[in-house]
């Protein structure tokens, strides 16, 4: 229970369903803030109190479990390392993979619980043969199946998402108000929870340090400078502050981050087009495809709020290789490509490499 409305209503529904429910708030920082600021961040003492008040209303016991060390090692340090390596990580995904459905789930199972129930908007469906499948939520706009795409069959066997079939967030808020939960109108949290002011660039600069370097075009000509390549994300247009205008006067985008050379490569929008995505770290969310070595039709989604795109996927040479029907923009290494068949999450890979749709000198 984060202290937000979704987990409070999820807990309420779990209680209604007859489960023996215990509220657990994850302490993810040894030095939590005292008060929530705006809609940003989470895990302040105020959030913890909100969670406890919700548990009080539901009449369930409530505890705070400290995962701050694990969170720092597996999520925060990973986030810093990924950016330092010129990649674009998704810390929420890492948290689901390593904390909520690993460290927390393991501890819960050892303590005698059967499942971890969260307020994620996603659905776990059991097929005729008893296999668990992960599906999109009914509320398309709130669907969070993407950030859960990293879960495996073993984890899904112990996952419970009571909000999966709710048509909208508004209905969840109304239900919270009806149930007398004080968090009914609490603002949604956005951004990355451990960067409370939302300034990812500044936060990273404090931890990675400032390292001035060049911004170059695809020919290698220096067109600007930066204070550290780690602050750039493939596809980024704003904040490049290029001194030299492009010859054709068209906007330029970050195409590649090269941490070893501390260089950012920029170019025109069409150079962002990615024809192929591949990653060696892939998982299946439930049963794997019958024959993953034979190309199969699917849809691929590369960001939490991106539209899925029809694609063909195949496992070849130890990699999950996904070829979208038409090229995708702004695909960065480190991001996760989640593969769907209909509403079902089939699996995912962390993107290691991409193949551009246009040749370098186009």
């Amino acid at each position, binding site marked *: 229970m984060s202290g937000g409305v979704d987990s409070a209503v999820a807990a309420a529904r779990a209680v209604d369903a007859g489960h023996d429910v215990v509220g657990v708030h994850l302490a993810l920082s040894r030095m939590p803030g005292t008060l929530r600021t705006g809609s940003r961040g989470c895990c302040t003492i105020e959030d913890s109190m909100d969670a*406890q008040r919700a548990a009080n209303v539901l009449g369930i016991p409530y505890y705070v479990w400290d995962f701050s060390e694990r969170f720092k090692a597996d999520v925060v340090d990973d986030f810093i390392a990924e950016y330092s390596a010129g990649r674009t990580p998704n810390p929420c995904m890492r948290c689901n993979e*390593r904390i909520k459905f*690993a460290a927390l789930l393991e*501890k819960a199972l*050892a*303590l005698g619980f059967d499942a971890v129930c969260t307020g994620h908007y996603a659905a776990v469906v059991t097929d005729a043969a008893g296999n668990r499948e992960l599906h999109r939520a009914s509320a398309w706009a709130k669907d969070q199946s993407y950030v859960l795409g990293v879960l495996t069959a073993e984890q899904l066997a112990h996952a419970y998402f009571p909000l999966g079939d709710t048509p909208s967030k508004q209905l969840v808020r109304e239900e919270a108000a009806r149930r007398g939960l004080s968090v009914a109108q609490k603002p949604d949290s956005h951004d990355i929870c451990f960067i409370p002011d939302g300034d990812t660039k500044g936060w990273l600069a404090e931890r990675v340090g400032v390292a001035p370097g060049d911004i170059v075009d695809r020919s290698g000509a220096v067109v600007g400078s930066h204070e550290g390549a780690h602050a750039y994300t493939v596809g980024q247009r704003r904040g490049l502050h290029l001194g030299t205008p492009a010859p054709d006067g068209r906007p330029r985008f970050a195409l590649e981050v090269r941490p070893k050379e501390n260089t950012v490569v920029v170019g025109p929008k069409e150079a962002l087009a990615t024809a192929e995505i591949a990653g060696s770290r892939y998982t299946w969310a439930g049963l794997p495809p019958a024959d993953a070595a034979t190309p199969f039709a699917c849809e691929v989604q590369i960001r939490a709020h991106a539209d899925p795109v029809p694609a063909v996927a195949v496992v070849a040479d130890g990699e999950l290789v996904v070829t979208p029907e038409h090229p995708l923009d702004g695909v960065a290494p480190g991001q996760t490509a989640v593969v769907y068949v209909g509403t079902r999450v089939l699996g995912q890979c962390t993107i290691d490499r991409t193949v551009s749709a246009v040749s370098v000198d186009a």
Partner: protein
Amino acid sequence: MVYLDHAATTPMRPEAIEALTAALAVVGNPSSIHSAGQQAKRLLEESRERVAATLGVDGIEVVFTGSGTEAVNLAIKGLWWRRQSTAPSAVDGGPGARPRLLVPAGEHHATIDTVEWLAAHEGAEVVVLPLDEVGRLRLDVLEAELARDAASVALVTMLWASNEVGTVQPVEEVARLTARAGVPLHVDAIAAYGQLPIDVRGLRRATDAGPGAGLVALSVSAHKIGGPAGIGALVLDRSAAVEPLIHGGGQQRRVRSGTQDVAAAASFAAAATAVHERLDEDARRMSALRDRLIAGALAAVPAARLSGDPDPSGRLPANVHFSFPGCEGDSLLFLLDASGVAVSTGSACQAGVPEPSHVLMAMGRSESDARGALRITLGHVSTDAEVDAFLAALPGAYAQAAKAGLAARATSFDR
């Protein structure tokens, strides 16, 4: 429910509830001049005298506060500031010549955070005195620090007994050393009050304490002895000068302004009197329960390690503190709670998260020991049946928590 967390707070005694509710119905501000005020004042001062009697002092030497923590703050900050303003070198506007504040490791947060604040904002030089392996202050180090330069010491502050591991401190020896050095001593007796006899004047006499030196201040709290939460007291010797933290109407020796809570004082006094009427008898009874609980737990879980003084005379009669290697204290607490037994991890909490115990770390214990700590504390209502219930629940909780403890470090879901 089996309640074995009396060091956190203990049920109010019937006498205290009765005194509280009776006094709540009486109108009158003790500072008012009219008869109603005089009635309130009478009840307040009678209560003060009754509390004072349990501490071996006069009524005028008891300053009621809003909590034990406030009493500790008033003693430490109040003494520190007054010692600076009266230090010889402060006469010509220079910094005080008594910047040193001697404090043992493993104190309660009321003390730790107060001295850290003084260090950060007021230039206090905090000298942390080490503990031995049972959590007892190293007297030789204190003696050496005082011998080094007693004139630069603003004050010494220490626990009478550890709230966490129950170790009784050598209060008389420290009182004697500070009396001899001419340095004021504050003792946080919140955990010890109601379990061990406390006689402030007797101790001052026994240690030849001169004015303003030796044991001059001592903090207690009502809710730890069956009184209400929201009232504590600072025993302040007549010769002790402190700077007030709260300014206003000048109540209570001008040391602690604010309308006085007559009902809380009356309730505190009722609890204090009741406790001290049977202090020895209850201490014997709780010691017997404690020793049975310790022996039973060690028999049930041989891996358990008793923290604090293994000598029964060196620890609080109501305190048991174990480390369970390989377990997380919060897992044990959860599992015992689920089987209806309330205990504590013993250390301070931030938003419900137990920190690794700084007391155990100061005693030289490993981080793993500090994580698997469990404090079980008895009270005046504790029974043999409750000890039995704890001993029955412990082995299962331990086995499961050990399993979960391993899980928290490396999980099979890791890839």
